[in-house]
């Protein structure tokens, strides 16, 4: 038993050692159209010596509050808290990406499909950046423009050679400087750096709640995502396994009836293939 305990302690220590503390934090705002509505999502990119994690701070904040709420006994206060959550953490997004140092060339992707958390590990895609020779200033840094196709989307990015960090939003990176602005050719996603911070407090470079997620491959993930995209509420409910419960009516936030059989608008994603 003691041996097991020692082993567990060693393992914990090892795991703790694997986490790096972020040295830099880049805050991006992304004007994006995932669904029918266009929204602005706030993202953080926390960069450490060997890795970087890209996540939605509002999603992490929201999930933390939801955890607290679950343990509350007072229903009234829970309701109040739930109502305010939307304003407190606007436009959360469950996507998180952990990129190993460029030399390692791997990343871990964590996201939700319907309400299931999934993760996979994959080699970073080949990004053949082409310099256009154009320059601009973003956040006070001189930036150069480069273009590349990543997972089927054509990205135009501005990177700052002054900041020798080969990272960027999502999996974009591999350039000799930090990517401060990135836009896809279809105009669906536009990331812009709005803040740069050195030594952010209490920021471990890790994926939040990876332990709760199911591991799969990228191929499997893409297949599941494709299946869920555009699903009607009825299909979603069937998948949730509501079994013999008959759902009579579903209403939207503003009290409008939702047709359970109507297929939902297809979502856009950062990767196409």
């Amino acid at each position: 038993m003691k041996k097991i305990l020692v082993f567990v302690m060693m393992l914990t220590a090892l795991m703790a050692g694997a986490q790096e503390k972020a040295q830099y934090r880049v805050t991006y705002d992304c004007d994006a159209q995932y669904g029918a509505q266009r929204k602005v999502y706030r993202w953080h990119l926390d960069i450490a010596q060997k890795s970087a994690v890209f996540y939605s701070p509002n999603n992490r904040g929201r999930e933390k509050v939801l955890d607290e709420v679950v343990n509350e006994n007072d229903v009234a206060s829970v309701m109040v808290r739930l109502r305010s959550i939307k304003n407190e953490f606007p436009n959360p997004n469950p996507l998180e990406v952990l990129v190993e140092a460029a030399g390692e060339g791997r990343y871990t992707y964590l996201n939700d499909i319907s309400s299931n958390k999934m993760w996979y590990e994959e080699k970073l895609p080949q990004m053949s950046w082409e310099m256009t020779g154009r320059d601009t200033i973003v956040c006070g840094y001189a930036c150069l423009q480069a273009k590349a196709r990543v997972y089927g989307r054509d990205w135009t990015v501005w990177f700052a050679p002054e900041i020798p960090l080969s990272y960027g939003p999502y999996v974009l990176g591999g350039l000799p400087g930090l990517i401060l602005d990135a836009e896809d050719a279809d105009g669906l996603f536009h990331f812009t750096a709005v803040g740069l911070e050195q030594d952010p407090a209490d920021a471990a470079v890790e994926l939040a709640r990876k332990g709760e997620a199911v591991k799969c491959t990228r191929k499997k993930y893409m297949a599941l995502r494709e299946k869920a995209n555009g699903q009607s509420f009825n299909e979603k409910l069937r998948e949730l396994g509501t079994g013999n419960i008959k759902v009579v009516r579903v209403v939207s936030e503003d009290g409008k009836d939702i047709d359970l059989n109507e297929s939902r608008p297809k979502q856009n994603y950062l990767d196409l293939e």
Partner: protein
Amino acid sequence: MKRLAIVLFLLFSAVLSFAQEPLSGIVVDDAGKALAGANVMAYGPDGKVLSFAVTGADGTFQLKKTAGLERITASFMGFKTVSIPAGQFKDGQQIRMEAGGFQLKEVAVTAERIKESGDTLTYSVGGFKQAQDRSIADVIGKMPGLEVKASGAIEYQGKPINKFYIEGMDLMGSQYALASENLSADKVKEVQVLENHQAIKSLRDVSFSEQAAINLVLKDEAKSTWSGLADLGGGYGKEWLYDNRLMGMQFNKRFQTLMLYKNNNTGKDIGAEVVDLTDLTGYRMENGLLDMISLSGPEFERERYTFNSSHLLAGNWLLKTGPDSQLRLQASGLLDREHQQSCSRTTYLTVAGMPVVVEDWDVTGRRREVKGEVEYTLNSAKTYLNSRTKVYADWNASSGVMNLDGNATDLMVRPWKRSVSEDLSMSHTTKDGHIWRLFSSTGYTWLPGQLLTLDGKQETLDLGLFSTRNYASVSHRIGKWMFSGKLGMDARRQQINDHLWSLLMPYAEPALQREFGSHKLDGLLRISYQRRQYDQNVQQGFCFEPTVRWNWKFSPTSSMLVYYRLSASPIQGTKVVDAPVYTSYRSQYVGTGIPDVQLSHTVSGTYSFRNPVYGLFFSINPVFTRSKGNLLYANTIDSGIYVQQASGQTYDANTYLLDGRISKSFSWCRMVIGLSGSALRSDYSYLSAGKVVDARTAGYTVSLDYSLRPARWMTVEGGSLLEMTRRSVEGAAMAGVNDWEHRMQLNFLPAKKWMISLHNELYHSSEKNFGVNWFCDASVSYKADRWELSLAGCNLVGTSQYERVHISSAVQSYTLTYLRPREIVVRFCLDL
């Protein structure tokens, strides 16, 4: 085949690699350990990047060799950047990097100053508030895309807002300036703009709105508890001054209230805070023919030339009677005494010989107004019911003495007004998707006016104006089409002394709406039968009034709207009346006595662009109006009385208007800049000595406003405005005037809680003999958490007069206005 392909591939790769001859090397730290992930860049002339590479796990890299290579650099987080001239770099070279702190130039995250979520933009108050801002209106004025007009009206992308909510509830109704001008910015967390806001829940996907609404999200400490403000101010100028305010409020989930008492004699116009700003569909009080004597003042802040003594008591209460219903009560009383002194010289451009009248005014205006409003609203997912009853009464009067061309004349006008109205609006969506609507708006305005004329007679002008508008409609959606049918009946009755004008107008209005992709197209045709009568004179006939509207959201950030309408508006009884009526002590009006109708075509457009991430907003609104059947008036001056008599002849007028605004917020120095411009051209005609003369007036304005915080201890806010007025008659250009206005407020924060403010205003004009008018105010204040003490000096320069030339379509006037003297005021403000 496969083998051949492999051989060919190998051959080709070999040739290719031979041709490119890559440069390779290894990057190591000062201890000789390979650095993975280091950036290596090859630069050409003018700093152009020729190629780059990121080192692998073993620290090695390969760079494409290109002509023009000048230097190679290696950089890595935590190490000093190494730069090697191309001539010194050898293939396979080891680049040794020395550890050295890489310091990031930090960029403070601009809190999500503007967040977008679908049709809602959320502006963070903290992100835009500057040290000098007190009310929430001060901060809203600094938010790109939003503008606070001088009247207190708030506009989003050039269009007035249609609702002003506090915590999602409509406490203020259309008199929202009372809240926006008095609610402290410290109590508000966020300002939300709800674009294309349809207040009626059941019509949200049915009836499209171009206007936005505003919702104030309060800080937690301002909610569910009584809070208030008490301001006490006193000072001295020419006389003792006072400026006080007492406000109490509560914002609960079930109950909201805002009560206020204000008084001052410092020139501030508090009556404007209880003016209706949004109510466009309900009954609007009608205007009579008499007005208070208002001496045209200069274009700058009223506070500079108004000698007033004002008291305002106002209360607003809102009670949630159910999850979807509410009862709202609003009442206010205003007492205002205003003393005006001015000297004017007016040239009547449309009167033969262009006579000049010189007037010296000394007038006191007294306003005594009370108004009240009770509103019940049920706004559920299927049903909407709104009933609003409004009452208003005033005992306003102006009196004084004026010297007309050297002769003293007593002045008195009592343009009293009383009004009562009821608006009722209902809508219900049935199970089969039919939307039924009922609307009724009925009101009566009584104007028992009195006037002392130039010849010493007391005229009575008794107007009784009744109006009712009613309709019932049903709409149904089939696929992407929405069909509606409306049947309505409008009636008006206007009694002007002993004369009677009336209108009866039943109408039918089929409408069609279609959505395809990002386009929304709707059109309607009003077919009405109009019966107009003035005394015994009757005119009747059918009118066809089409309206077409096309909205296209062609990108996530841009949208446009094109609108056309042909309207047939009956000329109001107050314009038709053919018995001479005095409209001021020496102006008389005589209409045609013909109850005619006036046609006008309006084409307007809107293009708006907004990118909240960049804080960039842009809108442009062109409008063209062609109105037919405008009356031509013969203008004469008879024994000092200016008579405007309708001749029976008419003319067509064209008006072109273009206005636009671009505003942008920057994270640098928290700067916000706005640039607005407008151009207005009117082509019209007038009668001069019996002859029709074609004329044109044009007005152009350009204005710039800005606000920034260049240092932690300083903020700057200001703007400039150029107004150009041009007039031409029969193609010949007449005198034009250019007026300039500049203002700048500098605020210094020398120590925590202290602020010193300097406010400068500068006015100059192309009229050379007017010189330059400069005003300077200064204040020093100490602001603790719950109270603030300030000492302010106004008009420190002591400018006491202002001169100006104003050109309109009919007159050119020179005015001299007396200004408020140098004044000192001490204020103590307490947050209760």
